[in-house]
């Protein structure tokens, strides 16, 4: 894999970070003596690669000392192919000055608003050029170009720190696209609103504590999907392989096609194909040489699928992997990761959903997230909320939060907005595995409504 990365950031009118990096290396995964071994090196001479391969074999043979059974894998076809995501503007060919000017212009707009104490902006671009070869004869060359950007206004007043982000928190929006993604965001145009909202939050009413109807904006719902659907369906987690670190899952194998996960209107897919959209979970082939697929995860509310690889597929009686093995870099072992885990659009227009709601809290843009190690109990808070009363959006609410149990939450969903409101969000920072790997995942969602949800616990004492 050959990875090139560019990171830029600005803070309060100055350039914070400007850095580029490149990393080229090889990772070799082997089965020897019926056990797994993996070694990686950046030493790409014949001697270096031979040493790395021998090390992988040696490690596998050592692993066999604690083997219960031989590694077995579902078959996969050999592919010789190339794949590249389409993009219009190579972000690495856009002059740095232009990228910085855009961030600094947005920064200036945010700092015009009295009460903003920190204005920040960032962009990151990544090009992954990788070649996969396997002993069954696959030779797959893939190139992925991804872009991301976002701005944040923070306001400190009295004893309170409030912030607003655009287009999403924790780095903004990221997709498998070129610089056209950043240009379409209109960071400068949105900067004044973001800044004004960060200051206005100090005077907003506190999120009440109790049980309420909530409407989640699509970005927040994207993270809800990530944590309460995406992680629990990882089959390695279900089978106990992550028990020591990331944890396990309430979705034990007996629940496949035997669990009411959500209400009838909820349909979720894991779709790595380009036709789903240019998400951070889009590719041609996974890092085990399996073609990108679409797997139904929740179908009309029923639990219908896991994320698998060639090894774990056999454990649920499948004879094929659904193609979710992904690696952060050449020095990390591929593992089961989310692709694009998306809630399919519903039928409501946004206006009709609001008009149909008597009393609710609309919550937008994630501020904090936490879920237990089996993915049952979660608590999220968002940057901003709004009253919805008698079919109209009303007063601003600060410190919104909600909590619940995963299946109870998804079963309470009674309205999902249509495709017009649907966005394929990118989560660039999903951590899993030991050694830790960070992976980008995609989550399509449109604003949706949930009934009888516990709210306000995070700020209650």
């Amino acid at each position, binding site marked *: 894999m050959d990875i090139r990365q560019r990171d830029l950031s600005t803070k309060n009118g100055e*350039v*914070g970070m*400007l850095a580029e990096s*490149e990393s080229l290396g*090889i990772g070799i995964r082997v089965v020897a003596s019926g056990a*797994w071994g*993996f070694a*990686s*090196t*950046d*030493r*790409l*001479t014949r001697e270096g690669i031979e040493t790395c391969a*021998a*090390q992988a074999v040696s*490690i596998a043979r*050592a692993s066999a*000392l*604690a*083997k*219960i059974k031989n590694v077995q894998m579902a078959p996969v*076809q050999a592919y*010789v*192919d*190339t794949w590249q995501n389409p993009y219009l503007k190579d972000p690495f060919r856009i*002059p740095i000055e232009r990228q910085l000017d855009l961030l600094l212009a947005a920064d200036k707009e945010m700092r015009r608003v009295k009460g903003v*104490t*920190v204005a920040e902006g960032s962009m990151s671009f990544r090009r992954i*050029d990788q*070649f996969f070869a396997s002993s069954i004869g696959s*030779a797959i*060359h893939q190139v992925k170009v991804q872009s991301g950007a976002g701005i944040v206004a*923070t306001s*400190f007043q009295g*004893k309170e720190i409030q912030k607003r982000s655009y287009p999403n928190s924790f780095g903004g929006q990221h997709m498998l696209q070129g610089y056209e993604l950043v240009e379409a965001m209109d960071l400068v145009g949105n900067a004044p609103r973001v800044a004004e909202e960060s200051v206005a939050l100090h005077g907003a009413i506190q999120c009440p504590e109790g049980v309420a109807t909530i409407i989640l904006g699509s970005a927040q719902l994207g993270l809800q999907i990530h944590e309460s659907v995406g992680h629990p369906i990882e089959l390695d987690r279900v*089978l*106990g*392989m992550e*028990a*020591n670190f990331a944890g396990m899952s*309430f979705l034990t194998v007996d629940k496949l096609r035997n669990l009411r996960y959500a209400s009838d209107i909820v349909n979720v897919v894991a779709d790595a194909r380009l036709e789903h959209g240019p998400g951070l979970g889009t590719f041609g082939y996974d890092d085990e040489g399996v073609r990108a697929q679409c797997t139904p995860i929740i179908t009309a509310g029923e639990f219908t699928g896991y994320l698998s690889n060639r090894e774990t597929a056999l454990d649920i009686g499948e004879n094929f992997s659904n193609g979710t093995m992904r690696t952060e870099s050449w*020095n*990390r*072992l591929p593992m089961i990761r989310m692709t694009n885990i998306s809630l399919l659009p519903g039928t409501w227009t946004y206006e009709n959903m609001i008009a149909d709601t008597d009393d609710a809290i609309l919550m937008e843009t994630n501020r*904090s997230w*936490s879920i*237990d*190690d089996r993915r*049952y*109990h979660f*608590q999220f808070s968002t940057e901003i909320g709004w009253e919805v009363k008698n079919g109209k959006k009303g007063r601003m609410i600060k410190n919104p939060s909600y*909590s619940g*149990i995963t299946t109870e939450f998804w079963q309470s969903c009674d309205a999902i907005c249509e495709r017009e409101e649907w966005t394929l969000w990118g989560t660039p920072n999903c951590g899993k595995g*030991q*050694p830790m790997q960070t992976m980008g995942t995609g989550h399509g969602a449109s604003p949706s409504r949930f009934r009888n949800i*516990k709210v306000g616990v*995070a*700020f*209650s*004492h």
Partner: protein
Amino acid sequence: MAAKKSKSKYSRKALAGGAEAPSVAAAKRKSFRSGVVDHRLGAAALQEIAERVLKLSHADETEVDITVVSDALTRFANNTIHQSVAEQYVQVSVRAVADGRTARASTNKTDEASLRRAVQTALDLARCLPKHRGLQPMVRQQKYVKVNRFFEETASATPEARARAVARVCKFAARQKQTAAGIFSSGMLETALANSSGLFAHYEQTRAEFSVTFLESDSSGWAKANSPRISEIDPDALAARASQKSQASRSPREVKPGHYTAILEPSAVLDLVGSIFYDFSGTAVADQRSCLTGRMGKKLFGDNISIWDDVTHSMQLGAPFDGEGLPRQKVELVENGVPLNLVYSRATAQKMKAKATGHGFALPNEYGEAPMNLVFGGGLASVEDMVSSTGRGILATRLWYIREVNPYEKVLTGMTRDGTFLVEDGRIVGGIRNFRFNQSVIELLSNVEMLGPAVRAAGEEAFEMVVPAMKVRDFHFSEVTKF
């Protein structure tokens, strides 16, 4: 499927790459013993690379940061090894300064062309920038406290040795009718920092870690330790502890959420108090996003809370110099509950009219600095003392998925995990279902009733620090989960 012939750039020639730095190639060839690649290059080899980079540069000033990593990790679950990995790499990071502007470029290739490209990229990037306010000349040669944190026994640990220890633990688990999962890792890190003003700093360390979870149908237990010396890691003892915790937490009962006296083992303390390290950054206070904004010099925590940053502490790890090459100084952060001092990079110190403390991150960055070697003052109480003195409370082994809810009051949310117990009338009466908490760290550190001896604690949410077990009153467990 359609098989188009790839016109890949990964030809045999391309894969062969350019010539490595001679010293790197020679050092890497040193040995390959039973799955261990000896990747330690040594100060001389790193200095040679640094000098080559500096000679290639035409920038006003140039800084070279070289990192060498060799890590291996054996991972087990369901009483068998399911992953075992190793990695080696060298990263060369170059910072160039041109007319008061600075930027960075990095590469993991040490051939002449790659180093030249990194130097040129850093310079080209710097020239794109507006001038950095507060950018100071690079530091000259410094004197550092010597720390010995490299142990050959760890660097040379083999996958067989790790596998044998894991096999023992897995067999033990099977005998106990339990299931074990965890990791056993070992590795080394070498860094060098050099610049065109004559600085050369070198640091090396080793690190071994064993973490284990024992599972049963309705309970689990966990234990973890790390050390620069692999001989100080006792996998069998850690496994026995995790096993015992799992047994003791069988058939967990549900206890109502509320405010309880909490007995937090060191790992649980670490993952909570670990969240406040950046609040002691001068930049965080200047930006008004530290919980210490407006609170310095005032009583904030209990009398029994003292915190300092000390890279030389015998239970700490890390280089004795910061990202600019300044010596890391010992800083008294909190004394008897009063936050007294912050840490400062050179630029932040200049801006805040303070003295640099040697805690700056590598430039350029927007975060400034942070104390990375926190040490909490401890006490004499054992966890058993804390339990025996508690009428009704909760004992937590480990916490999980901790996130900040309210940054100024430092309210954190998260879950208990892998060994949560109800304490009544001075004894542990059994396991309970895991709680969610929403707890202010400021309040927590004001409510500490008993402190254990400070130890090097290992968690999953914060980097390692030296912290004690704590008995804390009025800990807010807000909701309960289903297991």
